[in-house]
């Protein structure tokens, strides 16, 4: 066992211990109450490579990475850094040993500036021991220049879009000059342009000998950026291959253990009357003059670059931020929706973009998370909640959505991102909505669960629900939508029918 102090000294001396692998995990086991997250897994990261981790939700990828980043400790097994056994006690430990991680859920402090966030705990100090803000700004500017990022270092993080926050996280991790960089779904909030930018950064880091672990669900990214990949399934290690050696179907088969024939089961569904009609909807300073209709059984895709105002439109329609002008009509009747309660009363449902911030009640359990919306007008008698009836429907919904959990009393924060999303979808499905707004419903979700969710959405459409699906994933938008509405900087730039919609046309409208 080598102490972190010794490791630091070795690193500082510049000597490189003789080992083929930068980072290794051997025989690692990790259990949580009721769930075996990792069962005798192994992992090897070579110097100067991009190594992708693939697997369904709950397969154990994030858990293994959290062990490598010092957030969890393994119940059994060993971690080796450059051939030396090491026991990481905390994320700080990992950082000091040259392992930096960018998490799926962003870990920035909203009320501090970009520069303060990046240099937290390492702030440059003046002679008198005070923080040298000028130097901090300069260092940030240098870092951004090197990475070709265009963000003002003095902006407070809470004023940044989700995509820009992700770029800040990436810059922060890179600034640690670590040997190992672990990225957990780094592109989930990024547009194609930004993804390409990130790949440039990764290629540059790789050429300097840094080992990068890349967790993703997106197959095309794997083929584009990864040199090799490892597959996990149900907490077990399946295998490692070079990305040039396999096909897409091979990978899917390894991940789910079965064939998935169709990604997006789009069926022809009878489309009925107009259910939701939005006219000249405006939220001053955010979006203007947005008009569109959605019919029963129709899936309206909402495409556009990050920052185009799609989520804002959704939040306004749902009453979270009421419109400053314009009308919303449901089934022909004009209704003023100024609170989410009103929206729910009119059979609307809204799955928000950021499940950590506005979706999950992290410290509550699955049952409590799932039942919260339907309690507005059902399962309550004179103020008292019908616990057993509720538990029953939540249990059925949980099984139907195939939420991976031993029981409903599990804290939702212990679930993987994809399973959390399923619980939230269950929350809204329980209210039996007629209008369903989904904001990036499959962000950070694996292939298997993604297909399941798409199947549910199609089922709902068949039942006559009008669906609005905001998505930044082109295949998803094109595959699922009957019509696509494209937005750009707060305006609607165009509509495309399913037949005529192509990636090129959507991008044209999105960038106009």
């Amino acid at each position, binding site marked *: 066992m080598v102490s972190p102090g010794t490791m630091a000294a070795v690193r500082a001396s510049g000597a490189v211990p003789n080992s083929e692998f930068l980072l290794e995990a051997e025989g690692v086991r990790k259990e949580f*109450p*009721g*769930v*075996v997250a990792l069962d005798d897994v192994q992992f090897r990261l070579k110097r100067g490579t991009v190594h992708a981790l693939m697997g369904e939700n709950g397969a154990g990828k994030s858990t293994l990475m959290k062990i490598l980043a010092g*957030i*969890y*400790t393994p119940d059994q097994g060993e971690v080796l850094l450059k051939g030396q056994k090491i026991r990481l006690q905390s994320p700080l430990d990992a950082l000091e040993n040259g392992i930096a991680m960018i998490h799926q859920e962003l870990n920035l402090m909203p009320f501090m500036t970009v520069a303060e966030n990046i240099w937290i705990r390492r702030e440059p100090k003046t002679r008198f021991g005070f923080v040298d803000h000028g130097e901090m700004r300069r260092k940030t500017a240098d870092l951004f220049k090197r990475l070709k990022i265009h963000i003002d270092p003095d902006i407070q993080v809470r004023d940044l879009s989700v995509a820009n926050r992700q770029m800040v996280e990436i810059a922060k991790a890179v600034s640690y000059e670590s040997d190992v960089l672990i990225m957990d779904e780094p592109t989930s909030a990024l547009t194609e342009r930004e993804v390409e930018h990130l790949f440039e950064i990764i290629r540059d880091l790789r050429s300097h000998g840094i080992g990068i672990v890349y967790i993703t669900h997106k197959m095309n990214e794997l083929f584009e950026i990864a040199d090799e990949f490892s597959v996990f399934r149900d907490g077990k290690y399946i295998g490692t291959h070079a990305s040039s050696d396999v096909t897409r179907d091979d990978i899917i088969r390894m991940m789910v253990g079965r064939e998935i024939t169709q990604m997006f089961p789009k069926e022809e569904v009878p489309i009925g009357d107009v259910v939701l009609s939005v006219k000249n909807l405006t939220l001053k300073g955010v979006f203007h003059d947005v008009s569109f209709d959605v019919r029963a059984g129709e899936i309206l895709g909402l495409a556009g670059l990050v920052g185009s105002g799609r989520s804002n439109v959704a939040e306004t329609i*749902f009453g*979270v931020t009421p419109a400053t002008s314009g009308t919303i009509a449901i089934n022909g009747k004009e209704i003023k929706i100024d*609170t*989410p*309660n009103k*929206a*729910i009363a009119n059979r609307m449902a*809204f799955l*928000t973009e950021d499940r950590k*911030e*506005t*979706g*999950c*009640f*992290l*410290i*509550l*359990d699955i*049952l*409590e998370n799932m*039942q*919260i*919306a339907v*309690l*507005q007008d059902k399962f*309550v008698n004179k*103020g*008292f*909640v019908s*616990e*057993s009836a509720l*538990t*029953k429907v939540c*249990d059925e919904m*949980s*099984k139907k959505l195939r939420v*991976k*959990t*031993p*029981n*409903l*009393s599990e804290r939702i*924060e*212990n679930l993987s991102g994809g399973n959390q999303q399923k619980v939230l979808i269950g*929350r809204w499905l329980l209210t039996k909505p007629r209008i369903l707004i989904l904001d990036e419903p499959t962000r950070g979700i694996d292939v298997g669960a993604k297909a399941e969710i798409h199947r549910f959405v199609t089922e709902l459409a068949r039942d006559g629900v009008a669906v609005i699906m905001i998505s930044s994933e082109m295949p998803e938008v094109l595959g699922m939508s009957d019509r696509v509405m494209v937005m750009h900087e707060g305006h609607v730039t165009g509509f495309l029918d399913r037949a005529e919609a192509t990636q090129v046309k959507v991008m044209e409208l999105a960038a106009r």
Partner: protein
Amino acid sequence: MNTNVTANDAAGHGTAPSRRKLPPELNIFLVLVGIALVFEVLGWLFAGQSFLLNPQRLTIMILQVSVIGIIAIGVTQVIITGGIDLSSGSVVGMTAMIAAAFAQSSSWSRVMYPALADLPAIVPIAIGLLIGLLAGLINGALIAYTRIPPFIATLGMMVSARGISKWYTKGQPVSGLTDQFTFIGSGIWPVVIFLVVAVIFHIALRYTRYGKFTYAIGANVQAARVSGINVEAHLVKVYAIAGALAGLAGLVTAARAQTAQAGMGVMYELDAIAAAVIGGTSLAGGVGRITGTVIGTVILGVMTSGFTFLRVDAYYQEIIKGAIIVAAVVTDVYRQKKRKT
């Protein structure tokens, strides 16, 4: 918070056999038993007699903390929503003063409202509750509809209410209260009232929609809003209830002392918050149970009574009490953290 064993057995799907979850209060109950036993042992060592096997002492112990307990029940709910209420003690004083003025007997020499002497007890009681409710409503409205942090808003009420208590009779105590009124503070009535309040709100938090919404707001206020909860209206309700309970505590205090003084209730809010936190309520919000708060209240009572029993100097009492409060909370936080990873 939710030990839904039926959900466990009914669901059952998954890879591992479901384990019956121990109620979280078990830990704090063991702390209570531990502290009591410590005093028992110390009692035999230093005073040559039993601490616990004395029904009179036990009764007085619980009586003394009943008032704090009533306040703590309200404050627990406020803390669960992620807020805090610093005004409870001052509301106790204000309510005691104002209500007592309507509970005076005509046989007393200095009656504040001579025309309103000898009123049936229900009048001062109603007035007391309403004053507390009003204070809570103001707190809640300020916190819900402006961006003022709960700490500041209730601090303001704390100062104002104390000011009103002092101004009301220019510092004179209000005495000569009717027997009908002081009845609610006599015998073991304070304990009964405390327990009834505890049961009512235990049921409310566990089994009603009001309870679910309270926890949801504390866990994630934005998600609560998106899920259709009228967060503002709910917060007003929670603070109003806390205020009303502080009012009730004020009534019991005045009834028990058979007088009302402007300085009544000083520091009560801190004891109440301590009771809630010892009992497992998290200041971060979303976590807390009435059963825990009751145990926390009893722990405070045992400590106060125990120190008096051992003839510990009053000064040492406060210091040791503070240390024990911190220790109890640290142990609980540590145990919660361990459960996560």
